């Protein structure tokens, strides 16, 4: 069962018609095939047009689309010999951040990803992708492991934000995020981060202070959710579309601001229409990014990463 977003209604109607025609058996078979072909062409054109000019608010919906491939899907498809690793060795295992070691096209890597889950059960298991301090401390542990064994780090960002809860605060959510950023910036192996869906504030930057930061075409990355921003500045969450526009949270905006390095193109109609193609494209992009760092001195790598962040806000602003 496909989920259609509000603005995809005309597309959904057309596709519904196609389905109907296909179920019409019997008379005038030839005409139906013809009609289906025409409708399909219409759908394709409409998709292309719609997705070519999504508003920021629509991008927010696409980035959160339940059918969008999640971290687990990328790992399953791209990482061979994937060996999940668990726990922060301090308190617990937080499944909002999954991670482990494996190979990307033969190259041993450490993978860290935020997982939102695909159905009610898995969403609860992964706490909707909202990590607690344990999750960020596990990420730190995995990054330290990568550093020790000279393995590059691949990070997949997809979170609404860090979990706001009593236990999370008591166990030092802020400290866990701060320390995670520090480890990202300190390790001497390449870190390639990609925002695959939602890059929600501190919860995202905790694993995205990377040498290369990429975003999928319809992903978003922001200091606060549009809803949160609207309820504070407009005093009304209904103004979320206005906030989404004002925050400049689309991949295209962030590329213009020189916050991210690269946009990875999604299939027409968004990643949820063709997960396999999206995953393959990202695999190629990550591998290309890693190849750039081959032979770079570990010390140089780290100081360049620092420089990159120190320059932000100086460059790219008109």
């Amino acid at each position, binding site marked *: 069962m496909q989920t259609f977003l509000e603005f995809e209604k005309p597309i959904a109607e057309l596709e519904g018609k196609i389905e109907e025609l296909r179920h019409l058996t019997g008379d005038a078979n030839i005409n139906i095939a013809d009609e289906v072909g025409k409708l399909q062409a219409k759908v394709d054109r409409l998709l292309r047009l719609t997705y070519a000019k999504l508003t920021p608010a629509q991008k927010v919906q696409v980035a959160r689309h339940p059918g969008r491939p999640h971290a687990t899907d990328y790992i399953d498809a791209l990482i061979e010999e994937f060996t999940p690793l668990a726990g922060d060795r301090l308190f617990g295992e937080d499944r909002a951040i999954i991670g482990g070691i494996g190979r990307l096209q033969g190259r041993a890597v450490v993978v860290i990803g935020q997982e939102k889950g695909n159905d009610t059960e898995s969403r609860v298991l992964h706490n909707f992708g909202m990590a607690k301090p344990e999750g960020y401390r596990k990420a730190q542990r995995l990054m330290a492991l990568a550093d020790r064994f000279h393995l590059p780090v691949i990070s997949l960002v997809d979170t609404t934000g*860090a*979990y*706001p*809860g*009593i236990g*999370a*605060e*008591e*166990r*030092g*959510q*802020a*400290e866990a*995020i*701060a*320390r995670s*950023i*520090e480890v*990202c*910036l*300190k390790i001497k192996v390449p870190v390639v981060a990609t925002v695959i869906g939602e890059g929600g*504030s*501190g919860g995202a*930057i*905790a694993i995205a*202070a990377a040498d290369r930061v990429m975003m999928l075409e319809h992903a978003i*990355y*922001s*200091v*606060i959710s549009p809803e*949160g*921003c609207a309820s*504070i*500045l*407009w005093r009304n969450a209904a*103004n979320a579309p*206005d*906030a989404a526009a*004002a*925050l*400049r*949270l689309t991949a295209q*905006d*962030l590329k213009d*601001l020189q*916050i991210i390095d690269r946009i990875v193109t999604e299939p027409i109609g968004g990643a949820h229409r063709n997960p396999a193609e999206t995953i393959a494209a990202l695999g190629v992009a990550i591998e290309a990014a890693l190849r750039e760092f081959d032979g770079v001195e570990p010390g140089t790598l780290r100081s360049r990463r*620092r420089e990159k*962040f*120190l320059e*932000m*806000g*100086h460059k790219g*602003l008109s």
Partner: protein
Amino acid sequence: MNWLTNFVRPKIRALVSRREVPDNLWMKCPSCEAMIFHRDLEESLHVCPHCGFHMRLDPMRRMKMLFDDGEFQTIELPKPAPDPLRFRDQKRYSDRLREAQAKTQAFDAIRVAHGRMNGMPVVVAAFDFAFMGGSMGVAVGEGILAAARLAVLQEAPLVVIPASGGARMQEGILALMQMPRTVIAVDLVKEAGLPYIVVLTDPTTGGVTASFAMLGDIHIAEQGAQIGFAGARVIEDTIRETLPEGFQRSEYLLEHGMVDMVVHRHELRLILIRVLGLLCRPAPAAAVVPLTPVTIGPPADPTEPQAAVEIPETSDHDTQQPAESANAPQPPGHQPAVESPAGQPPVA
């Protein structure tokens, strides 16, 4: 009309009104509601003489209370282009900025100064909550970086005093990027072998807590301050239960291992002097003077105004090296030794 109301009027107001001086000579304590005479409030460093409630303190007063004889030098901070996103909600961000600048007479929500504390050179960066809730955007990030670089240059410890609601959302992703940038600032200081002390004051939340504010060598919290990551309302909305008593207060954080100590504002200078002395002067510079312990926590009787105004200048006998000895021989590493290579640890 906009230009008149938003630009001209605040400027005229700033000129005409005596700023920071209460129109009313009496102020009501937000906690116990007792009336406090403005002079008493100043003398008690904005701590209620009746109930000990710590009110928010602007950066200049803070610097004055921390440095020897209240003397310090603020440094000029980088002025990045304002309003990088041309952000507009119900109001233009550029207008909000201008208002905040007129109100606080500062470029942004942070001030950086250097001076001496018990003779030791120290760099202090203090937030101004009155400037858009002390929120962190590019200018604040630049301020922290400038403070860190100054500390490294002077081989001086860095003390940062946040009072902030978190990242400034009107600067969008650029505000978020100040988290890694300020973390780099902290690491510059640490790599130079210098102490980095955080004094957490009311409130310290959001992206500020989740970056430089939780990475101190030592965390000192002023009593009763709200310190946390997520806002209390957000947490309540998420978990749908009421929060425990004292949640996210300094004392609660001490209980959960997030801060080293909770101090009364009147003790802050002495504690900082002691901690920095121990970290920066591992060997005695001169004759060893017997140690008289400094008490941590509120004065025995907070209702007694005498105890409340007992600020550092009058209690020099409590420390080994009184402020007057600023000109006494210091270990060479503690002079503002600009010519010596950066990165050399400040050991005697």
